[in-house]
């Protein structure tokens, strides 16, 4: 395991370590945490523990800046949720929130100091067209003007192209399933819908059940093939399971549900990395039963070395020369799981020709 990344992982496991760091430790830590989108989580944690004052002044400026950003993002997500509700209430569709927005709405510790990019919502597939039109009339327009992208999203993905609010410039991802439709695994979205929980009195604002929340995040991390926010997603899940573990049958329901939704593969890798990187307490019995599960898809001994590098490669100091290759291979796997082979190659060619990063 590359030593460079220790400072974040050790600090995640034992936040007290932060107070024993000197200025040069902080210099590396701030940069690594910022890149992993976790700096605001540490900043908010230190503020809530009243420990910001014991951090060196020049460092504290950055932590206070991150606290301001975290507080703002929570306000923004709450306001967005209100605006989306206005549109969906008008057509009598309950609003099911996913990922970050759900953690905020349900006031879970996973929301504390979290950085958001978009708001993810889940709607019944049968009412997708109505939802898109209602959002349109409330000012959200589809950004992907490119015909190919539109077709790709609607045919192969579990969501329609992102919608951006034209005045506030904020983005919604409207999902009708939590895993792409054509994925070789088929978790049934209706099962998710029926087990959602209300988070407000009139029961129109809902989130997934605890087990489904964890499994959705696990599926997103270990199936989609996108690892720039891997450590943040793992920290989310660490916070979720620590919080839900107090519920009596949480772990058993989580395992049963993962088998029922065919997501025991992603759960296996999630539990593995939570224990290995974050020291998350997980009952031994669950670990054994998961180890005993057949590894659907590619063998674990192939994927493990790829995940090892991809999950922590968010900063130059943490990634070795193979990290880039590992992330690329997992990106291809993400698409392989979602698209038939005869479409996969042209799609990847098209994407690489239009790669957004600063090519010449």
């Amino acid at each position, binding site marked *: 395991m590359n030593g460079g990344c220790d400072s974040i992982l050790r600090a995640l496991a034992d936040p007290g370590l932060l107070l024993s760091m*000197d*200025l*040069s430790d*902080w*210099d590396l830590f701030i*940069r690594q945490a*910022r*890149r992993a989108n976790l700096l605001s989580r540490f900043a908010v944690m230190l503020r809530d523990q009243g420990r910001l004052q014991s951090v*060196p002044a*020049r*460092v504290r*400026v*950055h932590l*206070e*800046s*991150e606290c*301001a*950003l975290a*507080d*703002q993002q929570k*306000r*923004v997500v709450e306001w967005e949720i209100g605006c989306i509700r206005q549109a969906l209430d008008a057509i009598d569709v309950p609003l099911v929130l996913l990922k970050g927005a759900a953690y905020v709405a349900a006031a879970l510790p996973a929301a504390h100091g979290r950085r958001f990019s978009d708001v993810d919502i889940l709607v019944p597939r049968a009412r997708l067209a109505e939802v898109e039109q209602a959002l349109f009339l409330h000012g959200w327009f589809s950004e992907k003007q490119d015909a190919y992208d539109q077709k790709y999203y609607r045919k192969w993905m579990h969501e329609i192209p992102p919608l951006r609010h034209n005045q506030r410039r904020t983005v919604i991802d409207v999902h009708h399933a939590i895993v792409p439709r054509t994925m070789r695994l088929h978790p049934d979205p209706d099962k998710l819908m029926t087990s959602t929980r209300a988070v407000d009195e009139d029961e129109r604002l809902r989130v997934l059940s605890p087990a489904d929340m964890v499994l959705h995040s696990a599926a997103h991390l270990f199936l989609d093939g996108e690892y720039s926010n891997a450590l943040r997603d793992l920290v989310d899940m660490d916070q979720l399971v620590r919080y839900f573990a107090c519920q009596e049958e949480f772990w058993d329901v989580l395992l049963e549900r993962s088998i029922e939704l065919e997501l025991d593969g992603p759960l296996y890798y999630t539990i593995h990395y939570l224990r290995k990187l974050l020291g998350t307490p997980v009952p031994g019995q669950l670990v054994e039963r998961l180890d005993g599960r057949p590894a659907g898809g590619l063998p674990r001994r192939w994927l493990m070395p790829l995940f090892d590098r991809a999950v922590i490669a968010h*900063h*130059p100091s943490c990634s070795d020369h193979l990290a880039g290759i590992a992330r690329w291979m997992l990106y291809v796997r993400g698409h392989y799981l979602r698209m038939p082979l005869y479409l996969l190659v042209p799609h990847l060619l098209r994407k690489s020709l239009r790669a957004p*990063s*600063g090519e*010449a």
Partner: protein
Amino acid sequence: MNVSDLDDADLARRLRQGCLFLETGPFISRIQTSIESVQAGIALLYAGFPVHDNAPFADFHVALTRPAGLRRWFRPQVNFLFDGWTPFKPLPLEQAFAMFEWGMNWCVVNHAHKYLVLHAAVVEKGGRALIMPAPPGAGKSTLCAALVASGWRLLSDELAIISPDSGQLLPLPRPVGLKNASIDVIRTRYPDIAIGQEALDTAKGTVAHMKPPGDSVASQQLMAMPGWVLFPRYREGSALALEPFSRAATLSRLVGNAFNFTVLGRPAFECLSRLVDDSGCYSLEYSSLDEALERLDKLEVSAS
């Protein structure tokens, strides 16, 4: 120790090895580049700024590098890196120093949310700051450069950095950006002030930077209280007109020019409201720089 205390070879070495720790206003930046034009620009325009030997903590880690591959020879380019990450597309190599200045502004605007940061020029006289919010093309940078060259202290030509709790303005007196015609205007009026190499055909036309006055740089830790908010508008052939400007419209415009108003939220609203309460708010239409400078020299602290 300042940049001027380093001979060119030592400065170039530190920049090449990425261990030049430059202190500008409240920030220490660790800078790495092997591009000569940037090294020359820093040597010329950052002479008075303090340099630290191996500071253990730097607020910003920036680098300007030349992308590998074909681009090294064919239409060479430059990349701005923030801690190894490229937030922007590369630019032609000739614009390297301009990209350095733009990138440094970007670092502050995105990572200094302890402060409220406005897009505005700020100069100071008699302990009070004159804030000029800046719709593009209003002639703000020429007026700011002229004020500074004629005795006002430079706090910043682009970034008004306000501490929300004290309401004070923090200086960041980096080189003053000049565009197109204003480069010649300043060069002819103030021939002895150093102006950096011109970068041609950027999206904003030709860009060059004026060296900030030594005493502004020397007092870069000295904060200032707000005195006036001024909306300048250069209009060919217009008569000089300094008019009181609606305070409500001033507050609304200040918010419109803020980079991180919503990040700070209510404290930003309270801070700007106090600023408007305590400042004289004016619009200034002018066509003659001399008239404008003369009129602004006579601004008294408003007895609001």
